[in-house]
């Protein structure tokens, strides 16, 4: 397999991926420079239009370049014709053909190189496609916010970094996008910076992500010194010639994969670094849809899939990925059962679904993991935007206990939210079933029955908690006060259009069989068209029905039930409510160990008493020498002169005495 260098001088298409990338950056720059002028001239809506135009432009270009490069090559049944393109702006005579270097020191060279292959094609289409809809939605959602210029500039900057993350041709360039999206996530979570909880959540997200980033940095150092390259394509090629590492014989590949997986855990909110994502719901809801559901949080899955050939070499790393994914999936699903904030349900649901994707990767079905990433981007964005529409209708209320009966008041939101719920629950003909079905099928075919069992159990929970959210929000009687009820209104077209588009998407995207498309990119062995065991499909569909009917029973038929169940399983209920205690433990560690230790041991004792004690002791000597404390300028200068003079005398004496 080879990489096709797409030189600008030979093929004008080479410029298109760069334009896709730079268009949102241009939007950001314009908004930064002229945002203040827009505000002064009350042209603030212009900011939204600029942001939408740039991301729509990127989407159009992405569709154009992908169809031209891939489709025109004629894709065969096994993905023939899908290639790896390296769009280069370099001159034909460049030795490395890479054009500009970003870093070049001591043989360590990192070029500005992009990689466009089926995997990154799927990613950029998702990012710009779903991203465009969310930008449009934001026009309506943020129309009353006085700071929407700032909002849209961040959104544009995010799009740039996210596109860089998936188009970057080497790990360091990917890392620029990686930390860049983290930065934008920080800015957007803390968008309403006056709220303490919002700025806390932003800070937490950034710091927790940095833990992952440190793993990624160490991984890059390891990879560079082991393989002499950080180019993503080359790393995947090198993996072909490396030996398989069973658990007992872990080597370079295992170490590298685990370090990179630390990064993936941070960005994609997996145990033990998942704690930031639920808090990230402090940000505006479209941000939750774009960053914390459809795109950024899937970056970890992308990274693992991108280096699939390396991961496949390490049994230990694969086991880790699969089991962390499975554990996260089920843990987050249990927490989602007891959430009352509609966005928190969706947040834990996202954590859980990301776990599902890692589970798929960990059992070797990387393409299927990407498939779930793809379908999830649609139905979860739909659910988040739908929840945003609900919150908009409720004048900012997010507590589902104060909602109810909204289905007749906001019918479009209700209809689309129902489709989203059905999709994630795994109802036939909708996107979620197809990808989830394949994950579970792969677990069965690859004989990983414990993982299959966890996955199936999580599927039941997923169907249950999402249906619960649907029923609590849209069914029964309105539980808020009269004024709130009076205010409930359907959202404007700019918000409904994306909802409808995504809802239609939920019917379509499941039919696009991503594993076949990214097949070559993840170098997957040919196990895609395995036979379904007879019992399989009924069981998977039944799991969804059990969850939905369970929720129907408890939240429509027997509404006193949940409280009774909670009382009956009190310790378990409390465990879920306390989110399995992660936050408690981490906060205690941060405040009781890090902050308290740094203050009372390092600063007040080591620095102030031990080191300074020594210095001040000798300082007393100097004070008596120069009486420097009495009159600063005279005394101090005198002390200085004295010592300098002493030095000079010694020097001259020495030179004279010198043999």
């Amino acid at each position, binding site marked *: 397999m*080879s*990489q*096709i260098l797409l030189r600008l001088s030979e093929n004008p298409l080479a410029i298109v991926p760069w334009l896709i990338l730079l268009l949102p950056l241009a939007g950001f720059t314009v908004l930064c420079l002229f945002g203040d002028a827009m505000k002064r001239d009350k042209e603030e809506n212009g900011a939204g239009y600029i942001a939408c135009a740039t991301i729509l432009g990127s989407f159009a270009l992405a569709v154009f370049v992908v169809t031209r490069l891939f489709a025109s090559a004629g894709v065969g049944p096994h993905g023939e014709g899908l290639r790896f393109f390296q769009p280069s702006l370099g001159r034909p005579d460049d030795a490395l*053909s890479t054009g500009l270097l*970003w*870093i*070049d*020191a*001591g*043989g*360590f*060279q990192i070029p500005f190189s992009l990689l466009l292959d089926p995997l990154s094609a799927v990613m950029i289409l998702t990012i710009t496609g779903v991203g465009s809809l969310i930008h449009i939605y934001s026009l309506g959602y943020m129309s009353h916010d006085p700071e929407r210029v700032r909002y849209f500039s961040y959104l544009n900057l995010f799009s740039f970094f996210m596109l860089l993350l998936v188009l970057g041709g080497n790990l360091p360039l990917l*890392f*620029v996008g990686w*930390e*860049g999206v983290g*930065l934008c996530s*920080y800015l957007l979570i*803390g968008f309403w*910076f*006056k709220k*303490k909880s919002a*700025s806390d959540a932003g*800070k937490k997200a950034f*710091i927790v992500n*940095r833990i992952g*980033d*440190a793993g990624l*940095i*160490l991984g890059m*150092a*390891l990879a560079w*010194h082991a393989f*002499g*390259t950080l180019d993503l394509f*080359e790393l995947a*090629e*090198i993996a072909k010639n490396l030996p398989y590492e069973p658990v007992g014989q872990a080597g370079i590949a295992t170490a590298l994969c685990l370090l990179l997986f630390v990064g993936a855990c941070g960005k994609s909110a997996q145990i033990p670094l998942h704690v930031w994502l639920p808090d990230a719901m402090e940000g505006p809801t479209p941000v939750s849809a774009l960053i914390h559901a459809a795109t950024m949080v899937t970056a970890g899955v992308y990274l693992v899939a991108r280096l699939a050939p390396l991961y496949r070499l390490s049994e230990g790393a694969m086991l880790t990925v699969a089991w962390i994914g499975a554990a996260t999936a089920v843990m987050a699903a249990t927490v989602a059962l007891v959430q009352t904030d509609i966005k928190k349900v969706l947040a834990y649901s996202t954590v859980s679904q990301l776990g599902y994707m890692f589970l798929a990767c960990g059992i070797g079905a990387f393409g299927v993991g990407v498939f779930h990433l793809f379908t999830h981007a649609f139905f979860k964005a739909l659910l988040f935007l739908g929840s945003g529409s609900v919150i908009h209708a409720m004048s900012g209320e997010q507590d589902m206990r104060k909602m109810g009966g909204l289905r007749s008041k906001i019918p479009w939101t209700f209809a689309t939210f129902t489709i989203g719920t059905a999709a994630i629950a795994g109802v036939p003909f909708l996107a979620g079933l197809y990808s989830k079905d394949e994950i579970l099928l792969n677990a069965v075919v690859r004989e990983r029955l414990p993982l299959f069992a966890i996955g199936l159990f999580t599927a039941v929970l997923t169907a249950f908690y999402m249906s619960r959210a649907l029923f609590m929000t849209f069914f029964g009687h309105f539980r808020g006060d009269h004024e709130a009820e009076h205010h409930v209104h359907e959202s404007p077209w700019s918000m409904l259009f994306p909802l409808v588009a995504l809802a239609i998407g939920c019917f379509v995207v499941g039919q696009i069989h991503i594993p076949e498309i990214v097949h070559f990119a993840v170098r997957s062995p040919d196990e895609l068209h395995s036979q379904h065991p007879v019992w399989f499909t009924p069981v998977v569909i039944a799991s969804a029905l059990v969850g939905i009917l369970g929720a129907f029973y408890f939240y429509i038929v027997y509404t006193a039930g949940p409280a009774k169940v909670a009382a009956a399983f009190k310790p378990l209920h409390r465990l879920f409510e306390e989110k399995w205690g992660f936050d408690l433990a981490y906060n205690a560690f941060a405040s009781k160990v*890090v902050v308290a*230790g*740094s*203050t009372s041991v*390092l*600063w007040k004792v*080591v*620095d102030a008493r031990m080191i*300074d004690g020594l*210095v*001040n002791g000798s*300082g007393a000597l*100097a004070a008596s020498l120069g009486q*420097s404390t009495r009159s*600063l*300028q005279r005394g*101090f200068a005198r*002390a*200085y002169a004295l010592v300098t003079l002493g*030095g000079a005398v*010694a*020097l001259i004496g020495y030179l004279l005495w010198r043999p």
Partner: protein
Amino acid sequence: MTSNLLTLLVLAPVVGAIVVALVPRGNESAQKITALAVTSAIFLMSLLLVRDFQPTAAMQFVENHPWIPAYGISWKLGIDGLSLWLVILTTLLTPLCLLGSWDSIHERVKEFNVFMLLLEAGMLGVFCALDLFLFYIFWEAMLIPMYFLIGIWGHERRIYAAVKFFLYTMAGSVLMLVAFLVLYREAGVGSFEIAQLLTAPVSPSLQMWLFGAFALAFAIKVPMWPFHTWLPDAHVEAPTAGSVILAGVLLKMGGYGFLRLAIPLFPVAAVKFAPWIGLLAVIGIVYGALVSLVQPDMKKLVAYSSVSHLGFCMLGISALTTTGVVGSVYQMLNHGISTGALFFMVGMLYDRRHTRAIAEFGGIKNVMPWFAALFLVVCLSSIAVPGFNGFVGEFLILIGSWPANRTYVAIASLGVILAAAYILWMVQRVLYGEVTNPKNEALKDLSPRELAVLLPLVALSLWMGVASPSFTRTIEPSVAALLEQVRRGNGGSVLAETPAPAVTVARQ
């Protein structure tokens, strides 16, 4: 013109100082304008160095005039890749400091400008001197104006801070002086010229002692843990200009001293000591970050963060690999820019509120949006977010130190995490939330003058973040030559050099 450009650069501030001294005492704006004009002209002049610098290891713009021939002392100046950008950093920061202090220095304006100019002369001298004796003269001369900047224009505890600074530095200087003399005597080349001393290496056992003395002097300057406690006090008490110069330039002299003198002169000892220097460096990285986290005073927080950042620089130097050392030199520049800008911005808040306590602020973004935006950008550059200069430096250091000691690199990566914690916590407490303190309600946003100080630094930190090769390519040859010197001094390959990329993959 360029044949004596360095002498011109070093002496121009002295001439400027004399001119400022001649301006009548009452005419403060004339003093300020003169000083600013002189330092700006010096900056423009120093750009000639960048224009004519060749990316080779050779000393360039060399001037050599006998001074005290009897003892082999000469006025020998020259720069290479190690010093070029430090010179530019100095000439850039000095006018910015003057501009930044325009309205904050009210008493003894004339003396302030004179001292700033003399300080610049001393700093440039240190970076250009190629004669050990001359180096020492400049080293000492530069400290005097710094003492006075802290001692006269400093804050409440300025005397304590100045004395502490004095004691620490003097301890180092005395050691260095003794080591100079022993080296001069033992090398027996009858010259203080560094190039000559390099040709006559001293015995390995003596190298240990001399390297130790040099290392201590420079470690204090860096400052490396546990010799750092003068820094927080000096920073907190110094006026803004003093802090900027201190962090931006003076701290770099420690690392520069290692690279220019201690390592090449005593290569055997350098290789022996390197792991220990690396150890102190990683302790400093984590320790500085942890203590920074809990500081209630903004300047102290930034000061301790410098201990952490400079730990990175020393880690890269101790690795003795090209990538690591180039990264260190680059990171020194980055730190000068981002921490310099941070001190400027803390100073701007101080000018408005006369306090540096984090608890006094909160919600500043509501009243000073431009300040808030730039403050965040500068903070991000400081904590090495990719796209900014700091990332390239730290990344090169971590990559370059990996072959020397992976454990150190792993520990240093904790510093990356903690940096986000201490900076973002400060950002949150200063910028975000509602304005709770009524004294902050009417704060004015950045003035055009303040923007003029900050924008060059912000632009530079972005430019250095995306176009690093245009800087590192001039640094690398000198670093490679230095490491070659170390290798020769040790009689072969003792260094953990980065392997050349060995893998090539077919491209169609």
